[in-house]
């Protein structure tokens, strides 16, 4: 298992569009990827679950990846969030 903390900086938080970008990017990885925010654990491959969690801009989240390609999945998630998730 690998994990890293990061603060969301894209303008609207994890709404439809940015959540979709993240979920689509995580789908190809074999590893399970989870977003931990405000005590909630959310499946990072599920657009719906991410949106339902309503994670706002400025929130510190922890990305946790577990599985064969966990490091690659984690790196991909972090760099996407750093780049603002397509916004």
């Amino acid at each position: 298992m690998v994990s890293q903390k990061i603060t969301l900086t894209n303008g609207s938080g994890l709404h439809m569009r940015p959540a979709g970008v993240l979920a689509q990017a995580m789908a190809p990885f074999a590893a399970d990827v989870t977003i931990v925010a405000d005590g909630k654990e959310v499946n990072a491959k599920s657009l719906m679950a991410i949106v339902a969690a309503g994670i706002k801009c400025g929130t510190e989240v922890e990305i946790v990846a577990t599985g064969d390609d966990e490091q690659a999945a984690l790196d991909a998630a972090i760099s996407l969030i750093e780049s603002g998730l397509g916004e």
Partner: protein
Amino acid sequence: MKTLEGVAASSGVGIGTVVVVAEPVLEYESTTVADVDAEKARLAGAIEAFKELNTQKADQIRDRVGDEEAAILEGHNLMISDPFMVAEMDKLIEGGTCAEDALTQICEMFATMFEAAEDDLTRQRASDVRDIRTGVLCELLGVEEVDISLVPAGSVIVIHDLVPSMTAGLNSDNVVGIVTEVGGMTSHSAILARALEIPAVLAVADVTTELAAGDQVVVNGIAGKVVLDPTEDVLHSAEVRREEFLQERAALQQLVGKPTETADGIQVELFGNIGSVSDAEAVVSHDGEGVGLFRTEFLFMESNAMPTEDEQFKAYQQAALILKGRPLIVRTLDIGGDKDIPYLGMEKEDNPFLGFRAVRYCLQRPDVFKVQLRALLRATAFGDIRIMIPLVTGVAELRQVRELVAECAAELKAEGTECNADVPVGVMIETPAAAIMADVLAEEADFFSIGTNDLTGYTMAADRGNDHVSYLYSTFDPAVLRSIKRVIEAGNEAGIMVGMCGEAAADPLLVPLWISFGLGEYSVSPSSILATRAAIGDWTKAAADEVAAKAMAAKTEPEVRAILESARKG
């Protein structure tokens, strides 16, 4: 004949035959699944069919309405493609639940989660999830989804609510009117109706049972009325009104891109009044030449805490960017004891309109005011921003505001932030004191903007909301008109711009007076911009002067009104 009332959401008059669009009947018997794989395949097939249909609809909408509307439907495909969501449905099927129930339970679970969210955007997604559920269920049950594109020409669509998935087939070739039971000016159906120029009346109670298929109706989207079984006379006048409306709209469209000038070529500026950032787009789309009044109260009323400098800066910057260099006159916080904003710590007053409000509040609370001024100064780097002070009574207030502006500009400069320290600072003329002192104010203000609504109320000492005295509240009163004339002349003499941002600026009856007095800038609601351009173009200076001379010689409000009525153009 019967008249139903609702919200006038898209203007125009439509005459046609009612088509009541019922929500599809989606009843089914829950079964226990024996062949799990076949049931999963049935669900997967329905989802695929739904997505395909949805893509077609999105393409149709993109052609007919625009990208933004199409994106709503494409979002539905993204949501239903979520592997986690489908996996949850499959799990239920594995436990023996039928596809219909599995779909309903999982969609409802997400809709409930979305509804519990803190922010509006996420809450709105709940209706999208339910829309998806309806669409996929239609596929599972083999029920045709409502297809509005198939209604015959001359149809008036009567429906509980127009949801995004139904709007793909909507077009003005066969739909002449829309009537719904829910919704308002800013609802999805209203925006769509306006984009397609289909007259619409929304929020008409029980209309899907009040009206039946085949009924003849007039949909008056100007007055917000629906007339059932109109008499010959009513039908005839509706047809006339419809023609007039279409001609007026076509005539006004001709004025897009034209300068705003009198018949003899005297150019003036024509701006829009806005109350939010997105309104700035309406000003541009109606061909406004700038914004003459940006009310900033929305920033304070929409939040639970004082908006930060950054939040305010972003709003001003965004409006400036939308205007692409056109002037943006921003009115500083105009708040008083009649509006309850808990965190501003204002007390209820016996006489809020004569009390602690607007610039008076701002000058006593520099901690609040300077945040706004700093945000405005920072935004000057992105457009032609000008600062306007409300409720000024004399030159002392203007001087104090200027000192604060200079202080903020110096702070920003010291911090290395770019801004225009010479940002124009003007005053709103809306108190009798300011009108009387106009010549003195004109020496120090960079511009005037006459707020006719408050100036009329304060001059006549009458509240237009009070039925006993509202007859006194009239901008046509000689007292108000003399006051306005003085203000315009004082400003012109000093060589500063004089504008007007009250409702009177758009009144075609008063326009000749404003031309004669020499008003330089008219600021009106975005939807009145083109009509005001037309009204100004109806007059030469000489003709306006002649009417003004008569009107200003009149001694009472009814006399003034009668003179202006008889001079009415068009």
